[in-house]
């Protein structure tokens, strides 16, 4: 559990560094701290099988693996943040701190063993995000995003809390193990309150991960927030949301899956449909990514729907693949926004000629997001579909495959623009940090696509 402590202390340290004007040290210290936390999460891998802190937390392999991938994604995003916040505001230290705080919340979310910890984790993460969405103080869109996110987030938190309260009312405990025993002791006589609680928890968690029809905040907030924060929200936060989702449903609610799985099937199908259909019509890269992220939620819900031995692995692989590819896409987006000023698909024209490296890595990212073989995204989708098929959700998989085909269309638009459309343009300057992130991520994507065993045995 030293991962959580490390990150919390790191956040305070960075805050004080900012206070004492050590601006140059902010980024290196944050990165070193995160590297430390990352190695700790590997070090603690396999060391806890029992809940700790009076049953509040359980840092098992599941938690260690998800902590690892969220910390890694945050690390990549931090590498991209060089010179990013300086352009927005003078309070740079605060932004690193707030991101680190939200990461601390995320660590709680992936390792809770008690519903109160789930709630606290989600809140620590969410409150930080409300601030981050609005860090462009003078930008109207950023303000709007923050306000919208806050209002709707607060609203959905109410449902989450109410759901937890109902579960407590029915089972008499917040502890996951106790709740599980409550169901198992008399599966036929579970109180109606409990069912209501499950439904409200689904609402709350689906809001956090952005599943339809609770996704309306996502496109506006993603668009309005600074791109780097959007990258953080759509990768790390989503991964954590799914980890929390899966932990609860896999551990506690699996005996009642007949009740809730039709609900999730509907939500998954709806997310796929809305995300993909709307993404097709977008003219801007960022908005396309926002909508496509909704459709990825649909795919990831598959793992929750088809609870079986491998659904934790499959969601882990999918989340890892999706996060890495998204970070590459956002890196390209930031470069483009900063140096061209727009992110419409036309602004990608002829990129391959001027920036072959950037174009190549972005192509890898798009292929992975579209789920083309030999990329990590394919393995993720493949695992999702197999696990859904193993529980006989044939029509859902059929529907998802159709949607994946739609997805290919809009992801390939970027590739086509880069390679097959000519335009007079200047070469984008790609700083060494960006090169590092892009290169590493592309290599990881291919590596996982060829040899997924590398991470799929972590859980």
């Amino acid at each position, binding site marked *: 559990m030293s991962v959580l402590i490390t990150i919390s202390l790191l956040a305070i340290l960075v805050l004080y560094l900012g206070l004492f004007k050590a601006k140059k040290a902010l980024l290196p210290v944050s990165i070193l701290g995160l590297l430390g936390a990352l190695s700790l999460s590997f070090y603690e891998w396999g060391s806890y099988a029992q809940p700790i802190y009076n049953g509040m937390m359980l840092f098992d392999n599941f938690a260690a693996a998800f902590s690892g991938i969220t910390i890694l994604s945050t690390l990549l995003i931090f590498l991209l943040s060089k010179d990013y916040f300086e352009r927005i505001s003078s309070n740079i230290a605060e932004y690193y701190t707030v991101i680190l705080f939200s990461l601390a919340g995320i660590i709680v979310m992936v390792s809770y063993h008690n519903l109160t910890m789930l709630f606290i984790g989600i809140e620590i993460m969410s409150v930080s995000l409300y601030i981050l969405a609005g860090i462009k103080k003078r930008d109207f869109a950023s303000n709007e995003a923050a306000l919208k996110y806050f209002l709707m987030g607060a609203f959905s938190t109410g449902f989450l809390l109410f759901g937890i309260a109902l579960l407590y009312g029915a089972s008499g405990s917040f502890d996951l193990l106790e709740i599980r025993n409550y169901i198992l002791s008399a599966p036929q006589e579970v109180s109606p309150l409990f069912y209501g609680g499950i*439904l409200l928890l689904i609402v709350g968690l689906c809001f956090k991960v952005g599943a339809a029809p609770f996704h309306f905040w996502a496109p506006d907030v993603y668009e309005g927030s600074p791109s780097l924060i959007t990258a953080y929200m759509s990768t790390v936060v989503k991964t954590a949301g799914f980890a929390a989702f899966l932990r609860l449903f896999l551990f506690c609610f699996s005996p009642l899956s007949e009740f809730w799985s039709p609900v999730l099937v509907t939500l998954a199908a709806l997310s796929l449909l809305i995300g993909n*259909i709307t993404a097709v019509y977008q003219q801007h890269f960022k908005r396309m990514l926002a909508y496509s992220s909704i459709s990825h939620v649909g795919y990831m819900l598959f793992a929750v729907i088809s609870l079986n031995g*491998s659904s934790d692995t499959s969601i882990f692989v999918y989340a890892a693949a999706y996060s890495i590819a998204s970070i590459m896409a956002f890196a390209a987006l930031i470069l483009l926004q900063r140096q061209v000023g727009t992110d419409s698909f036309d602004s990608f024209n002829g990129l391959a000629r001027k920036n072959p490296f950037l174009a190549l890595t972005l192509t890898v990212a798009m292929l992975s997001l579209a789920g083309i073989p030999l990329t990590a995204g394919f393995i993720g989708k493949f695992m999702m579909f197999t696990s859904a098929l193993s529980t006989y959700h044939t029509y859902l998989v059929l529907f998802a495959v159709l949607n994946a085909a739609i997805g290919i269309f809009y992801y390939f638009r970027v590739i086509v623009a880069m390679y097959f459309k000519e335009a007079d343009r200047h070469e984008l300057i790609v700083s060494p940090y960006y090169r590092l992130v892009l290169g590493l991520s592309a290599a990881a994507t291919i590596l996982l696509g060829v040899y997924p065993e590398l991470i799929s045995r972590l859980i």
Partner: protein
Amino acid sequence: MINLVWLIPLFPLIGFLINGLGRSFLPKGAVGFIGSLTVFLSFAVSLGIFFELNGSVTKSFTIQLFDWIQVGNLSIPFSFQVDPLSSLMLLIVTGIGFLIHVYSIGYMHHDTGFAKFFSYLNLFVFFMLLLVLGSNYVVMFIGWEGVGLCSYLLIGFWFSNPAYASAAKKAFVMNRIGDLGFLIAIFLIFNTFNSVEFAKVFPQAASLTAGSDVITLITILLFVGATGKSAQIPLFTWLPDAMAGPTPVSALIHAATMVTAGIYMIARSNILFTLAPFTLDIIAVVGLATAILAALIAITQTDIKKVLAYSTVSQLGYMFLGLGVGAYTGAFFHVITHAFFKALLFLGAGSVIHAVSNEQDMRSMGGLKSKLPVTFYTMLMGTIAISGLPPFSGFFSKDEILAHAYEHSKLLWLIGVIGAMFTAFYMFRMLFLTFFGKFRGTTEQQAHLHESPASMTFPLIVLAVLSIIGGFIGVPEALHGNHWLAGFLEPVFSASEQRTGASHLDHSTEYILMTVSVIAAVVASFIAYLRYARNNHVPVPDTAERTAFANVSYNKFYIDEIYDALITKPLNILSGFFYRIVDKTFIDGFVNGLGRATAEAGKGLRLLQTGNIGFYIFIMIAGIVALLVYGFYNI
């Protein structure tokens, strides 16, 4: 040695990486040397493995490299299979591949994309080796897709010419249609046998009854995959267009190796096909029909590479005929000999094209015999071999296929022999038009005529020798041979042969069949000689009138136009319909309507709530209510 099999695909991959990454600064000499050397190293290892396998008692080895995909009960190891079939194929791919790399050093010397070309070629060899070595359908499929990709890249190598780029696209699309069949077949195989490993699927299949529906379906789908890659009716039109690529590519990919992948795949899965007699009949008929149709088209073509392309399609048709009548050994024998003489013919054609300053129309050639002696004599060997004149290699392999066809049905045999006649005719026509008579090109071209450099003639000579003697690996019993190839491949096909029974034509019948086909070939080549060498007949220019048949043949039976009318046009109309009606009206209407509805709803709700966010929450509430209603009814 067999444990080192992973080295074989590794070398070309390294070559690809070096040439691909170093393409901007490596000198041409180094690029050519590295490209050829890596393939040669693979060839050396392949040779070692071949001899070890030949001497070994066990004939099938599976070398597992690592666990690749492990999900639930699906386990796909990344492993290679070494057995007589794959080891022979390895020799062909790396051996001919090496020769063509050497040839390319001379042929592509003036091209600016020299390093790119070699890196693509290396990559192709890598994927082709994966295809050949894979011990399950998934690894094979990766190779299958990979060679398709490389073929696409190499056909469109001179992509600045729109016609070439669209030829590449055509090849890719047609291959994808076939690939879909292959992919579905893999799913079905997994569904039926619970594995995609050859070593697990085939023994299980051998215990099944013949003619069951699922096997028939699987084999038909596999065959659909094969028609795409091996250019059979109805997916053959991409191959002639693929001649847009540089000539070494045509020789390597579109004659010797990649296009035979379909035959390799079917030979590999022979037990499945033996269990599906219905599919075998389809394969025989489609193969023969392709062989005849392509031969008829080849007769009137004037582009030297187009003649060879249609000839390839036609020969592939013969191989499928062989598979269809159960002559797996014969079909694979023809794969080997065809690889020799067709690679030779293509490289010879490349040498000719090189000499006449990139002219490909035979109407502007002629009389090159004295100027290009090496090219002429080697191509003559190739022509004799493909025409099936003894004792050249083509005679033995084609004869084995035809003998099995005769056993199966006399009609198939008859049509096959007629096709062979056409083959001899168009091949000699090509030879005479190119090398006999007077030079018909411009004076500028005439001044430039020269024999190709040694790096190009050396492969020609090697291949010519192989074309001459290559047939002796499979001399039939009737000619007092012991058919070494059949014995070597016996472990691969034994399960099938147990079911079908061995060949039982008596020797006198075989002699008659051989004599008939040899006479047919001789007559056909003599007619070609009279018409094109003695009478100096030259095909008419494009503008002139032709006879009805010649016109149909010259225009390739209007297959492209028919596809255009039957498939492309309706698809365009359909997509136009979808675009205008479904897309514009319904989807756009729906999406725009949704947007408008949101705006309207927002407008309407503004009196109660402030702005859009209220609507968002409204929808959320609607969702929650729906969930709770659901919950209420399902507790």
